[in-house]
């Protein structure tokens, strides 16, 4: 298994992995959107200089998972807002199949405004986004390594604090993040009733030089 940074040429694999998350987690806005939307969304993100998508690839070149994050979520929101028309067009197939999504998309679009009171995700600083692993891949133990490598990259690039969200329904993932050093900052209740925890991890602390490293004995 090795890791590499995703490029625009990897977009189909990213879209597929993220799209298939609905097989195991079928709630939320993204789980209702069609592939055309994902493709446009990732096309925008992959052209954002602040976006970091780390890939795990096996020896056959098969993409097993990815962890995405941004160094500057405010800049990302501005970029997404700038591309609202192309995103809306890409979302049309999803809207046709489920017209209620128009309202959902509109609310999310409004939430990317810096002055918006309604937030679905962390809105300032560095943000951890998605952490996806192919459910059919047997080497899922690598997903931990993938995640922590992506945090390490964020740290190396100057982010001290990374914020992200975990729905309490994912209780084991929530426990992992707590064990991994993240702390709860606040809590929001989504329109569908889901409870979402906004978390923050201090990467200086996580990757402290004072920690005992492998001795090489």
């Amino acid at each position, binding site marked *: 298994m090795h890791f590499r940074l995703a490029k625009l040429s990897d977009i189909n694999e990213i879209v597929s992995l993220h799209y298939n998350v609905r097989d195991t987690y079928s709630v939320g806005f993204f789980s209702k959107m069609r592939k055309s939307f994902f493709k446009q969304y990732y096309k925008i993100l992959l052209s954002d200089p602040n976006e970091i998508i780390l890939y795990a690839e096996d020896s056959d070149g098969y993409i097993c998972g990815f962890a995405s994050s941004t160094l500057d979520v405010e800049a990302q929101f501005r970029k997404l807002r700038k591309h609202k028309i192309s995103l809306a067009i890409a979302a049309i197939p999803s809207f046709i199949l489920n017209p209620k999504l128009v309202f959902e998309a509109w609310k999310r679009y409004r939430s990317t405004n810096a002055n918006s009171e309604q937030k679905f995700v962390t809105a300032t600083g560095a943000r951890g986004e998605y952490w996806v692993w192919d459910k059919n891949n047997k080497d899922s133990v690598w997903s*931990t390594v993938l995640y922590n490598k992506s945090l390490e990259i964020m740290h190396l690039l100057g982010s001290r604090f990374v914020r992200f969200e975990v729905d309490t329904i994912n209780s*084991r993932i929530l426990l992992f993040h707590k064990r991994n050093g993240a702390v709860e900052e606040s809590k929001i209740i989504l329109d569908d009733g889901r409870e979402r925890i906004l978390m923050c991890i201090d990467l200086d602390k996580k990757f402290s030089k004072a920690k005992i490293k*492998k*001795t090489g004995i």
Partner: protein
Amino acid sequence: MNTLEKYNKVFSESLELNIDQLSGLQYQGTALWDSVGHMTLVAAIEDEFDIMLETDDIIDFSSYEKGKTILTNSYGIEF
């Protein structure tokens, strides 16, 4: 609390097992020691012993006993 007691506590709390169930335990040998459980266990061990496990060690950490060997041989933690 000595090192072994700390190690056992992390294992039993992370995987929701009794201490007497730990000997011989292997990765995927109990419901909660799947990939998510492994991440939680590794994070808890790093936190408890204030260490940073290398990638190879995270992957090789395939059993209760193997974990002790890794901590002793690579991080100088004596049991």
